[in-house]
């Protein structure tokens, strides 16, 4: 089903949802997951947020500032939300028994962290603003929320609305709003037989800054990402892989 996006002329689009991938509840959404307690939203979801932030930065983290909002701030400590977020940033998964001791692991691995409270506007009660700096100097800022049952949402990436569920390989392309970028991206993906699950496009104004958020059914090959990075008018390409690497 790849390539369905090509029916559109991207210059006339402001915001389009081509195809919404709705996740049905299966047996193992009811039974499971195997996780470290005490809360699927405040603990397991928090680990997943940390892990996803690390996947987005794609390098080891040197420094992180985490600003907790709402219920994360009010009850986070008793739920181990702070330890869970750090565990995820260190590459741990929600069932890792080292989660309660993540602060010690952070110290050993030279990850410096700082917690604060914040009041985010229009945010889910279980939200956190994370500012990251990697060992190679890359920086990233995300707002993420834990929306229940261990599921999460990356609401913003570097200040831009994203609303990514982190359940698919996700490609985020920031580009100048000009004709041709959508078809460039969809055609390189289709050439590599990568099927698009959902695709959203935003822009601030005609001819201004645009962002494409594409959730895929397969991993996007690195050469596609490199090719897009070099394309004219593309300012930034961020990729969230679902391949679980523990080292970069």
């Amino acid at each position, binding site marked *: 089903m790849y390539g369905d996006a090509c029916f559109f002329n991207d210059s006339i689009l402001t915001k389009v949802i081509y195809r919404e991938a709705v996740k049905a509840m299966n047996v193992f959404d009811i*039974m499971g997951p195997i996780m470290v307690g005490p809360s699927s939203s405040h603990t397991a979801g928090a680990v997943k947020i940390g892990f996803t932030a690390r996947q987005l930065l794609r390098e080891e983290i040197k420094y992180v500032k985490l600003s907790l909002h709402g219920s994360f701030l009010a009850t986070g400590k008793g739920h181990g939300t702070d330890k869970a977020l750090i565990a995820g940033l260190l590459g741990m998964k929600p069932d890792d028994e080292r989660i309660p001791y993540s602060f010690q692991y952070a110290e050993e691995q030279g990850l410096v962290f700082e917690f604060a409270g914040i009041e985010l506007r229009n945010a889910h009660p279980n939200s956190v603003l994370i500012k990251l700096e990697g060992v190679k100097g890359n920086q990233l800022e995300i707002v993420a929320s834990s929306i*229940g049952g261990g599921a999460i949402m990356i609401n913003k990436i570097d200040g831009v609305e994203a609303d990514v569920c982190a359940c698919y390989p996700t490609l985020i392309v920031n580009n100048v709003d000009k004709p041709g970028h959508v078809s460039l991206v969809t055609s390189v993906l289709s050439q590599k037989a990568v099927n698009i699950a959902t695709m959203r496009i935003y822009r601030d104004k005609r001819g201004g800054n645009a962002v494409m958020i594409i959730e895929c059914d397969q991993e996007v090959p690195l050469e596609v990402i490199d090719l897009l990075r070099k394309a004219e008018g593309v300012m930034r390409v961020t990729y969230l892989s679902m391949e679980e690497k523990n080292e970069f």
Partner: protein
Amino acid sequence: MSFRSLKEIIKQCDEQQKPFWKVVLEEDMEERMVTAEESMAKMEQLYQAMKNADASYEKSLKSASNLVGGDGERMNRAILENKTLSGPFIGEVIAKALKMGESNACMKKIVAAPTAGSCGVIPAVLLSYEEKYHATMQQMIEALYVASGIGEVIAARAFLAGAAGGCQAEIGSASAMAAGALAFLNGGGQESIAHAAAMSLKNLLGLVCDTVGGLVEVPCVKRNVVGAVNAIASADMAVAGIRSQIPPDEVIDAMREIGEALPRSLRETGEGGLAATPTGQEIMNRLFRE
């Protein structure tokens, strides 16, 4: 598509002459495009993880708030000293439910079934059953499919989260799932399974989520006990031929209606009920100062 009613599962059991668990298994195979072996291997992993969690209980652990820990051990001691009115089997169920709830509060590895807060109910009855009746792994896996099928219907018609529908949605659902699984293990057919679930859920309708300090500790750990023991009583009634006068799917719909009518203060906000008592408030203030 996942099941939207217990009636639908029972209809498939009757039409295809298949047991309840098999209908649920085949739905998973179709939904996730996996073989029976793959699906059952994953279910076995979950059961094994429940067993491991039970075996790795640490009696000296306390939760971060210091409110929870050591009660599973107290119960175990009472059983050994022959002090329980409920006898060794129910006593073991109570101890296992406490231990799992405590392990969860102490950041140990557990299986959310269906949620982390209600993680003690299903393992408490299933592990105790397996120990007492020397059931096979195959039987226990089948029982977990029965429980999951009931959970799927509850998720589709109502909810499974305390924040959405109160404790009845967490412990109530876990209890209904456990009751159906036990009715199956004790020889009940699809009707008995559905009615065990219905009676179990009925008994816990209206249960609010009033967690002290918003933590999954008080009263959650002990509510796991009530969910487990209620499941045994309901399964026994169902296998004895007792039926819920309100049909199972309608009971689930009632749970939804009640959950939606609950005020926000009684849906996992730590604002009402036990959380609002003078002692609950004092605990909350202490936690916030720390």
